């Protein structure tokens, strides 16, 4: 099982200028912020279920950037229909990485549907995102990097990871207007 925080940090190590990163509510945002403060990050701290449609809107509006969304299985399960929307309104510059720990860790580690019978890769494939795959080993790191920076998306990657509570790492601001304006300022074209 992959340890999510160092894995997120590894993916973002030496990130390229054309990458913009969004994270869904909860641990994904703390993971993203743990990789270092960056004006090209926007982290959700609420509005569960909205990070996937947000990433779609951003990817549509900024075709010259590679858009990467880190989110969790809980956030994704709340917005499964948005995967179908992305499949049918495709954007080539979007990669979704679901950090799937099969658990609502922040609320007391209750199991999510992916701890049971539900497979998010199959849901994405069945929704029509053909470039969907599951990663269970850190050895697949390079495959992910190729997807994020080079492959035609939309792409949907499920990273199976440990259900382990990690320290909170706060973003630059909890004020959404500060966060989004700073993020917007990082994009020129």
């Amino acid at each position: 099982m992959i340890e999510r925080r160092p894995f997120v940090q590894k993916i973002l190590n030496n990130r390229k200028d054309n990458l913009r990163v969004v994270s869904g509510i909860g641990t994904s945002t703390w993971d993203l912020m743990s990789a270092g403060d960056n004006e090209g990050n926007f982290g959700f701290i609420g509005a569960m279920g909205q990070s996937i449609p947000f990433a779609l809107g951003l990817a549509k509006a900024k075709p010259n950037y590679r858009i990467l969304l880190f989110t969790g299985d809980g956030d994704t399960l709340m917005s499964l229909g948005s995967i179908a929307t992305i499949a049918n309104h495709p954007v080539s510059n979007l990669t979704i990485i679901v950090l799937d720990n099969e658990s609502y860790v922040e609320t007391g580690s209750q199991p999510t549907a992916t701890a049971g019978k539900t497979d998010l890769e199959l849901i994405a494939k069945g929704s029509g995102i053909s470039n969907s795959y599951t990663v269970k080993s850190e050895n697949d790191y390079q495959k992910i990097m190729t997807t994020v920076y080079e492959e035609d998306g939309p792409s949907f990657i499920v990273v199976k990871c440990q259900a382990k509570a990690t320290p909170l790492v706060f973003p630059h601001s909890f004020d959404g207007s500060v966060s989004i304006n700073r993020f917007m300022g990082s994009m020129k074209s």
Partner: protein
Amino acid sequence: MTEIAKDWRNDIYAVFKDLNVTVVSHVPDAGHTPLINLCEKDNEIDVVTLTTEQDGVGLSCGAYAGGKRSALLMQSSGVGNCINALALPNICRVPFLTLVSMRGEWGEFVPWQVPMGLGTPKVLEAMDIKVFRADYKEEVGSTVDAAARFAFNTNRSAAVLLSQKMIGAKQFKNG
């Protein structure tokens, strides 16, 4: 002038063009269909069919982060699906515009439409959305224009309720 050119949806489309709205998402409603058709014929407007209305809130906010103006079209029944999502444009001060075709308020045939129809303005106001309303065809263009400018100029959320009196209530027939 053709019949469709006189339609009040053309006035909404004209506002979209005037104010550079280039992303239009929707869960379709018959009341919006002529507008959706106009937008789909326009290569400068990206039309996204959603599976649930709340995704249009996130989509609009993401498009705004990327520098594009958008509008979400939905029926009043969809407003309830959006409540928590509306926290996103609120806390991020994203200009969010939605146009809501009303059901359950004027000559409605289907009783199941009434609860959310009655709740729609209250729910929107409870989430700090500025609510505009158009009851007559002649005022649609100016009302949508005012709501859009309110949203885009003040970085707040605005909704226009398009009344069922204006749209017309469909009377269903069994068989």
